[in-house]
């Protein structure tokens, strides 16, 4: 998604190495995706759903 849109930056974060981040974003399982610190997605989603989640957040 970062590759598709210059406004998007994507971080792959190793949760056990950075427990402060895991705590801050309430990572209770993986994969967990956090969009703009507000939208939280626990577990994997079908590819199209990530677009939807990203766009929902644009409207907010």
């Amino acid at each position, binding site marked *: *998604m*970062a*590759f*598709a*849109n*210059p*406004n*998007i*930056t*994507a*971080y*792959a*974060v*190793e*949760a*056990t*190495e*950075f427990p402060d*981040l*895991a705590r801050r*974003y309430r*990572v209770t399982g*993986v*994969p*967990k*995706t*956090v*969009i*703009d*610190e507000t939208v939280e997605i626990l577990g994997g989603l079908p*590819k*199209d759903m990530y*677009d939807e989640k*990203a*766009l929902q*957040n*644009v409207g907010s």
Partner: protein
Amino acid sequence: MALLSTADQDKLRESFGEMTSNVRVLFFTQTLGCETCLHTRQILDELPALSDKIVIEEVNFVLEKERAAQYGIDRVPALALVAEDDTGEAADSRIRFLGAPSGYEFVSLVQAVLLVGGRSPSLTEENRQKLAAVTRPMTLQVFTTPT
């Protein structure tokens, strides 16, 4: 000692052979107080041997704070993937890795390098058009654990 088996090296060499542009991996690191920086370096050292299109550049996180800030890096080890065309012109992919890319994360790193290196994206044209609606900066963080 190589971390990858000969068979894995051969497979990766073949995949990287499809790359059309160069990829510079900026490796943000520090000598002291970083448990996994050395391991990350060892993992990254495997890559340039498999493709002359992959370059690893070590960036000292302590001495080069401005560069780290430029790429949104506030901890180490961290990677930023940058595409480079033939003239050396660089384009930030905005793809980052925080923490050592070991286990399955190594696969993610390989996929990201291939993407930045010119392999066609897995997103469909429809996906891309929808994402065009994102017109202000957005940050995605995907948390994983070592496997």
